[in-house]
């Protein structure tokens, strides 16, 4: 498994902590939503980054009150086919204003990366078949976007109506 963060291979400074396992006192820790809800004060008093796992069947809405206290939200994809996490991500970013790290975990394949990024994910626990360096090319394969999404890339329609701008810069922003 490799970590892709902001389109680069990165060292992972976070650890996933299973329920029932003690949370280390330093370093980024990702816990389940239930644990966070049960131990909120202790966890945010740790003085180290804290993240949670938000399962796909839990509505993003449930996190509204906590969003400013979280440094990372991990959205699991148990199968790449299960696309609920794409909507979850957009809602977290666009509706609930989450600005921390949004991480896609689980069955993350090369050819899903560009879609995930457009929905607001900025980091990926990459498990795909091909090697991770090669997978970085996936972000740029198609530069044209036809819709406005979380990444705020300029859609084809917007470009056409602002002819002075270049039609695509291929980056997220």
């Amino acid at each position, binding site marked *: 498994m490799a970590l892709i963060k902001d389109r680069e291979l990165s060292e992972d400074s976070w650890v996933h902590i299973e329920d029932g396992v003690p949370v280390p006192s330093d370093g980024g820790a990702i816990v389940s939503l239930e644990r966070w809800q049960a131990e909120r004060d202790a966890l945010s008093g740790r003085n180290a980054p804290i993240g949670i796992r938000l399962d796909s069947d839990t*509505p993003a809405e449930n996190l509204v009150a906590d969003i400013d206290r979280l440094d990372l939200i991990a959205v699991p994809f148990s199968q*790449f*086919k*299960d*696309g*609920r996490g*794409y*909507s*979850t991500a*957009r809602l977290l970013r666009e*509706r609930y204003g989450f600005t921390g790290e949004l991480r896609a975990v689980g069955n993350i*394949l090369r*050819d*899903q990366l*560009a*879609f*995930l990024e*457009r*929905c607001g994910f900025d980091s990926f626990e990459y498990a795909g*078949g*091909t090697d991770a360096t090669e997978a970085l090319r996936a972000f740029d*394969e*198609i*530069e*044209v*976007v*036809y*819709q*406005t*999404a979380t990444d705020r890339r300029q*859609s*084809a*329609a*917007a*470009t*056409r*109506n602002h002819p002075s701008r270049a*039609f*695509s810069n291929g980056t997220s922003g």
Partner: protein
Amino acid sequence: MYIYDEIDQTMVDQRVNQFRDQVRRRIAGELSEDEFKPLRLMNGVYLQLHAYMLRVAIPYGTLSAEQLRKLAWIARKYDRGYGHFTTRQNLQYNWPKLEELPDLLAELASVQMHALQTSGNCIRNVTADQFAGVAADEVIDPRIHAEIIRQWSTLHPEFTFLPRKFKIAVTGAETDRAAVKVHDIGLIAKRDVAGELGFEVIVGGGLGRTPMVGPTIRDFLPERHLLSYLEAVLRVYNQLGRRDNMYKARVKILVHETGAEKFTEMVEREWEQIRDTAVDLPAGERERIAAFFNPPLYDKAEDAAETLTRQVAGDADFAHWVETNVAPHKADGYAIANISLKPIGGVPGDASAEQMDAVAALAERFSFSEIRVTHEQNLVLPHVRQDELYAVWQTLKSYDLHTPNLGLVSDMIACPGMDYCALANARSIPLAQEISERFADLDRQYDIGELKLKISGCINACGHHHVGHIGILGVDRKGEEYYQITLGGSGAEDASLGDIVGPAFPYDKVVNAIETLVDAYLGVRADNERFLDTYRRLGADPFKEALYGVN
């Protein structure tokens, strides 16, 4: 019609390169068939009984002559000289080779075509009324919004891994030629009392193993909000549609299980949050797209109608064809010419490369280079001068494209069935051929009148049997092919689902059974009453009696 700009062209070109790389990785063994599957499905590539199959998108059924020639060229070079037009206004090639697919897609891209989203659990190729822009009863050309939806749905980042496939159809006319009520979303353009343009929105229709006529969830959606409203529907579906059971994953099940009212509330609530964001198009873009669908510059064609009358009087065969296959056009002196792809005994929807070239040439000469593909698996020349119909017909005749059977019993829809499809229980094509031959006598077909017969080889209902006036469904009975017959379905504005008439028939009894049903209808129909109307008036009894005897 819509012409790509540099942006659209860049997209399809880059898409071809992306797919080329995916195929390379598959052939090199970097991708397993399982990993490759979702990628090829995003490009219309299925693995079928004998080979890969490629489904090419013909967005809302509009083709240029140049595009049709390219499809013919591809059929010769990469297939066995023919293609199959489907009920979703696509074209299927049954015999392409995996390693040649990237080149094939590049050929398509060179004429502004693609195979994007013709399969997979995403928003599929958008369909529309084949008479768009020329129908006399039209509020607006539905292709404008179909194109808007095509662009919006293309590689939509949020809706590419939906619970199940998602099909959208648009019509701008009162007569529903696009089967909008049996789509995941059906849109009917209308004007409100103030004259403002908008859509009736129908969600959750569909066929397959749980057929449903979709409920209307909004009577009037102002046009400028179209995309935000669609996005709201799709988001609700993406989050809540069932993923535990693929047979219950379509949006129709969600709408049904939630209740249309509650579902509507959820959509409206979501829409309130996004209706004034950048999801909807800037006004200029709508105008830009609409301009592509301005009508062509029609001639005055002053004496055209008279010439046609004379030609009709002089040639009885031509007169039949005009009566059956030609429809009124909104411009004076013009007509819509339907080209039947259902010759007696032929394979419904198949067209040879020679036939495609011939139709392309006719379109260039007589129809402003435009062709339409219908969901009933036929072709259309949408703008023919009435005094040129005779010349068109004569050419069609030399390519066996002149069968005057539109809407008649031999103008059937049939799915590929056991001949190509890995899921089939039974054969569809040979049955369609036999029925067509049994009713070969055209005078008899005219006498029977409008009769929509639709055949599916299994419960997935690719042949739309549920909405056939007569529907035939292939079922498996201990390894033997049996056929269930339904009566009284319709896919038009009076949409309804057919009822099973009684026990199924083995293959060799089906043609007789159909003939028995037709004869029973002829015996009891009132004047000018269609088969469907007789059935609706009298119910199943006279038909049951004819088929199975009294009780």
